[in-house]
């Protein structure tokens, strides 16, 4: 039997968490070392997988592992990887590494922090390689849940004014607090998973009592069933991808979460949702995907513009980035809705690009917050003088965010818009482009307000630039952003091995798709 590389990647973080469980609280150095080592091990594994998948060529799945869990129900542990999964493994590996390194500065209960964080990472890895719907769902839930504790314990609290028609409710719920944010995030995401579960059972029943995604892909579900199941998956997974109007957990959650958690959550977890829509929703339910494509794309466009416009009005640094995630995840969903090769390639690439970019953003925001204990932009200004490296990387992240060629963000957005134009609803590309323009306005304005201008205010004059661990994290993410932006084929070749296969299957099933 071949070396179970995928299980290795999944298990490394969990194993590290398990070891930490038995370490004393005081062994902070040991904990950090183990966490970073585990993340490196997973990252190396992911890189190796990517290389191998590229070398072994397109179309099929590699590194399959299959064990029965509940044989009589057809539930099995089945993992395998294709171009899509491999690219997201790589993303997760990179961000985990960067997040684990960036968190080494954490002093408050690092052991528990890493246990939850690494548990979550294991779940994320699992989702991306699961080829059994059930395992997919299982890992999905695991990836979502530790977030509650991570935000609730290590998060930060803001304050939101209660007003508007729902002021009474806001007073009641302590809107803005970290517990509120953690709870909202958990409930909305698991609410989504309730819908996923229902759809999953529907497929299981109609698809001959199997959860094997390879088998289910061969089943022709009746269009009527698909019409029902697809929106359940779309909204269910979409909730995690920040789908409008279920996105409001995201700004609050990301604003409240500690650095590494925001990095992982916005960087990787939101992709879980989008990946679910694409991999489960659209690939397994081709008719549903086509019937609902218009709605998916249109809401995605709303996401893009809504997120960007909301981000523009924010004065809280973390909220800006969080809303930008909502906007950018709209790009992913738009790409998925196009049902074109370019659109899907773009969606997958945007997952990667946005993941890296937003992780970079959040690590920078965390870095600033750690030093200033302030997220309010009007209090800032002129930081470039005291923290030039931070300023440089922030600008880089902004550039990727607004789709500057030479960064990964451009390739992704370009492909998605290209796909959008090639799709049945060409007009999607226009609001998409406008969203990019609005992004340019708010990110650069933010950069100016934080970093430019005459020296920092008196109380921030002592700020220091990024330390060693932070620099490792920044350079890792920044370099990735540029390298994949300049030479996207590093990843696109990989993604492109899977996309046409899935798309061909979709079109073979479907009735009327644009050529």
């Amino acid at each position, binding site marked *: 039997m071949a070396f179970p590389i995928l299980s290795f990647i999944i298990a490394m973080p969990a194993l590290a968490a398990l070891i930490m469980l038995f370490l004393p609280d005081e062994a902070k150095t040991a904990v950090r070392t183990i966490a970073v080592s585990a993340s490196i091990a997973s990252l190396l594994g992911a890189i190796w997988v990517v290389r191998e998948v590229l070398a072994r060529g397109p179309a099929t799945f590699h590194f399959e592992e299959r064990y029965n869990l509940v044989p009589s129900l057809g539930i099995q542990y089945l993992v395998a990887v294709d171009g899509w999964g491999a690219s997201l493994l790589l993303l997760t590996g990179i961000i985990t590494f960067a997040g684990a390194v960036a968190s080494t500065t954490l002093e408050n209960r690092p052991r528990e922090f890493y246990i939850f964080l690494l548990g979550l990472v294991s779940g994320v890895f699992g989702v991306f390689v699961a080829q059994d719907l059930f395992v997919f769902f299982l890992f999905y839930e695991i990836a979502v849940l530790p977030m509650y504790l991570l935000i609730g314990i290590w998060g930060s609290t803001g304050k939101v004014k209660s007003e508007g028609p729902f002021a009474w409710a806001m007073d009641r*719920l302590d809107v803005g607090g970290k517990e509120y944010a953690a709870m*909202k995030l958990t409930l909305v995401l698991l609410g989504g998973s309730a819908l996923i579960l229902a759809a999953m059972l529907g497929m299981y029943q109609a698809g001959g009592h199997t959860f094997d995604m390879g088998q289910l892909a061969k089943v022709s579900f009746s269009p009527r069933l698909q019409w029902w199941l697809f929106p359940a998956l779309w909204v269910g997974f979409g909730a995690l991808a920040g789908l409008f109007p279920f996105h409001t957990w995201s700004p609050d959650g990301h604003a409240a979460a500690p650095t590494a958690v925001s990095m992982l959550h916005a960087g990787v977890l939101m992709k879980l949702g989008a990946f679910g829509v694409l991999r489960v929703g659209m690939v397994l339910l081709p008719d549903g995907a086509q019937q609902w494509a218009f709605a998916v794309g249109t809401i995605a466009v709303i996401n893009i513009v809504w997120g960007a416009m909301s981000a523009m009005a924010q004065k809280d640094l973390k909220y800006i980035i969080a809303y930008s995630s909502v906007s950018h995840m709209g790009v992913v969903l738009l790409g998925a809705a196009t049902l074109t090769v370019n659109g899907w390639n773009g969606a997958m690439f945007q997952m990667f690009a946005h993941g890296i970019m937003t992780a970079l953003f959040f690590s920078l925001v965390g870095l600033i917050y750690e030093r200033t204990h302030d997220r309010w932009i009007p209090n800032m200004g002129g930081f470039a003088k005291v923290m030039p490296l931070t300023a440089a990387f922030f600008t880089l992240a902004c550039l990727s965010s607004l789709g500057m060629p030479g960064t990964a963000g451009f390739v992704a957005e370009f492909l998605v818009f*290209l796909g959008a134009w090639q799709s049945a609803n060409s007009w999607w590309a226009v609001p998409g482009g406008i969203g990019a323009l609005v992004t340019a306005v708010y990110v650069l304005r933010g950069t100016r307000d934080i970093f430019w201008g005459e020296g920092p205010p008196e109380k921030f004059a002592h700020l220091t630039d990024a330390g060693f661990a932070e620099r490792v994290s920044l350079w890792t993410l920044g370099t990735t952003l540029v390298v994949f932006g300049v030479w996207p084929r590093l990843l696109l070749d990989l993604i492109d091995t899977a996309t046409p296969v899935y798309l061909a299957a979709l079109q073979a099933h479907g009735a009327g798709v644009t050529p």
Partner: protein
Amino acid sequence: MRTLDLALISVFAPLIIAVLLIIVAPLRRAGRAAAALSVGGAFASVFASVALTLARLADNRVPEIFETTWLPEAGKSAATIGLQIDGISAPMLAVVSIVAFCVQVFSLEYMADENDEDYGRYFTWHSLFLFSMQALVVAPNILQLFCAWELVGLCSYLLIGFYYKKPSAARAALKAFWVTKFADLGLLIGLIVQYAAVGTFGWDAETVAKLGALGVVPVAVAALYFLAVMGKSAQFPLHVWLPDAMEGPTPVSALLHAATMVAAGVYLIVRAYPIFQAAPQVMVAMSVIGGVTAVFAAIVAIGQNDIKRVLAYSTCSQLGYMVAALGAGSLFGGYFHLGTHAFFKAMLFLSAGSVIHAVHSNDLSHMGGLSKKMKWTTLTFSVGSLALAGFPGLSGFFSKDQILESLWEGTHRDPLFWIPFLACLATVGITAYYMSRVVFLAFFGKLGEHAHHAHEGGIAMRLPLLILLVPTVIGGLFGGQFLGLLALPEVEFHLTHVTPVGVVALVLAFGGIGLGYVLNMTPAGAGLASATAPVAAFIEYGAVDRFWLGAYNLLMMALSRVFAWLDRYVVDGMLNGIGAGALTAGEWLRRFQTGRATDYVYVVMLGVVGLTIWSQFAALVGGSR
């Protein structure tokens, strides 16, 4: 050396330097060393691109294209990147690298007051810019051109914002970026439309033929491309960013905002000319907009007191010329003017930089009589001004002549061309006037208040001026060779070809210079000149700028607050409402848990009775069915 090697050197030498400086922080912070590397890179680029141009001059039969897949689509290639070396790109490479080299050398001294870190940063961005511009020039397809186009925009943003501590510079950098980014949407969507229609990003004959057969599509594509041109090349009404961009260091203005980057828009038209030709309506509109820009910017330039802003508006105006010519169908006229303008405008800006360096002010009223202190600069600025005004024999004369000629021919085809024609003709006179005004105010007359301690810069500042002086003076004589590179058999170019239009233009130019003398050097005229100033000022910061500011405030700021409010208090509010509602419901339900045992029995019995009644009712209904 092979073409590919030369092209690679010309494009990538600056990139390697830039990357090196970005990654190796100590090197960048060393300042001098960074500058030396950067200038070295630029020189390598000059060497390679001049060699390429010479090779092209010798043999210009087939374009040489080197490309490789950049974006795959279902295993095939959706987009390539590479190098296209032909008669169009090679001379542009040379122009860009020469001007960039001159500007960098000039900057060595001009920027010497900066601290080492900023100095290094300055040259890093310069190297990056040179790479981006070269990559734009050699782009074999519109996608790569777009990428490079955005990158030069980025460099423009970074360099305008070089003095990032100055709020006005920060604002100008953002304004430049946003306005051009807005326009770039046109290019982005245009090239997507093109790809969706014909399946390539190219501009070759085959693509254009396919595109041309698609009715309205080429018009849409060309119009969208032209939107981007309007932004990048500061055409009315998207010109608003260019004057503000003068907040950057003067050499930056010379290189980016006069000679090369702003000309990228014109270069795009030149490069994708077949596509534009497939959309005649867009060509006419282009010409009209170019003409309007030319005369509008020229009028505004009259009233400026900031020497850089005069030049900025003049750039705007000249770009309008080029666009108008291209719209009228004169590829040669527009492109030739791009080349000559690059040299003399860069020289003008560097001369202005030299003056500013000497008097530490941009304001014309602080200058005066500088010819006594700065002879070299006076010479270069005056010659540049004359070239700009179209003084016979200087490079600007020939290229401008071509433009007016082509517009005149245009009027025969379509009466709409009267607009650009008359506008450009008027601009000749106005240009001559405002340039002579600057020359007289700055260099002649009595010594200005800041001018007493002025002195000529060192060799690093003088040498670039002299290098640029050469093409300014004799550049026009090489029009024939240039035409040869473009391979336009139907166009003719004569050095001694007198046309009625040319004569009228000449008269207007001399009239303008004369007027400039009268109004600025004689007491009688001074009053008249100052009377026009408010008018010009009104036009400058009048309707157009307010329109964009209003759009920004209304569409972006105000609307965004509406969105954010809705998001927080309605969309999220509903979620909160559901959450709090559930809590309230839970609270309310708890009231029924009274804690009294008899109440519990009560409820149990009620439940049983309810069940009984319902089951009877259900049986009744079920029975009747």
